[in-house]
């Protein structure tokens, strides 16, 4: 069964929630002063002339974390229906989830031993 009752409120609230930042930006656009020359619009770098830009290639150290995150985030999403229906499923579902989590824990231990969770 696929039913979407209650989501008309979600859409309505999405409109109202989006109007908050948009209206406040418009209000500030009307009210704020329009002074300030090109000097003000330079990039801040502790008062120095900026050395180079920030849109360059460099090593993002968090990228291994992002990979591990994808694995565990999907795992968590898979576990949600299991948790909601757990009272009707009983012991067998518990053992199945145990196996499922055990496989992922092996993956976590592997990533840990390989140094994917080291920030260096």
């Amino acid at each position: 069964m696929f039913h979407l009752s209650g989501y008309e409120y979600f859409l309505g609230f999405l409109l109202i929630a989006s109007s908050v930042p948009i209206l406040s930006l418009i209000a500030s656009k009307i009210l704020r002063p329009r002074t300030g020359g090109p000097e003000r619009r330079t990039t801040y770098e502790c008062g120095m002339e900026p050395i180079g830009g920030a849109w360059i290639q460099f090593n993002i150290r968090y990228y291994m974390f992002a990979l591990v995150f994808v694995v565990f985030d999907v795992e968590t999403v898979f576990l949600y229906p299991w948790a909601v229906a757990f009272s009707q499923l009983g012991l067998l579902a518990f053992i199945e989830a145990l196996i499922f989590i055990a496989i992922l824990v092996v993956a976590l231990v592997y990533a840990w031993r390989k140094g994917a969770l080291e920030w260096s």
Partner: protein
Amino acid sequence: MNSGIDLQGSFIQTLTEFGLPQDVARALWIPLPMVLVVIGAVVGVLVTVWLERKVSAAAQQRIGPEFAGPLGVLQPVADGLKLVFKEDVTPNKSDPWLFTLGPILVVIPVILSYLIVPFGQNLLITDLNVGIFLWIALSSIAPIGLLMSGYSSNNKYSLLGGLRAAAQSISYEIPLALAVLAVVMMSNSLSTIDIVEQQSGYGILGWNIWRQPVGFLIFWIAALAECERLPFDLPEAEEELVAGYQTEYSGMRFALFYVGSYINLVLSALIVAILYLGGWEFPIPLDQLAGWLGVSETTPWLQMLTASLGIIMTILKAYVLVFLAVLLRWTLPRVRIDQLLNLGWKFLLPVALVNLLLTAGLKLVFPVAFGG
């Protein structure tokens, strides 16, 4: 269990008595609680900012704001008005579209999360069947906005701050979701109403914090990290990154980040109150108390009383947690980025998994105590 008061029903009934068609009355009702909640969220931010400044001042033996209004209560309003009238500087080298879209993307999901926060039996915008899961989904949109603003500023501090913010929130999202999962398992439902009702009946003893003490701690630590509060405020660590992803922001766009972070703090405190501290429940079971005193559950004044006490209790519990967060800010030093990631991945994640399996096991052994 009494059903509480039905505001929607009585509102629509009143309007139809004035001769309006049912559909029009219903359409008039829909935006009403939403606008009320948005106003409430903004007032909540003002109160939190004032509380934070006053408590911080007390922690440092200062007086804090005192001139704007009695005890300086109007100081946050003055701050907000100042930001509206401020010049808005967009750096020449930035990407103007992403630069504006970043703060908007941070604010919208946090406001939208109020959709599932219940203040009473019927006092929420809508009781979605995915409930708390919607909050988890929405909370993962904000890092995209942070990354966007960090990248679009074309400033090294902003970029590093944005990357840190993204890494931090993805690292703490998994322990957070797993801690929620254990609560969901006990209430057999994702709906926030069901989660609170499962804790009702025994007063303070029925609250989830007694059955999920580890989950509560995991959730609270992870929620502080998601809100970028000290000791986890690395994305905007002043000494290293000036102001992180906010460095180039000024005026209203900065105000959006500011409001967004405070709404997020109040929201997290509300969610903790709902998941672990019994939501709108009073510490003493009011229904039973009324039963002993011989008052019927359906008495109108009793229903009014429980409904208004429910709103007060929810907000009170949330603000006790906000107060705790402010005190933590002045108690704990900031952690390093490697300590932060280690805490998330090597401590909270395994503990959250064990907590989940332990809850599942205990639910099999003691089905009555853990929600059947």
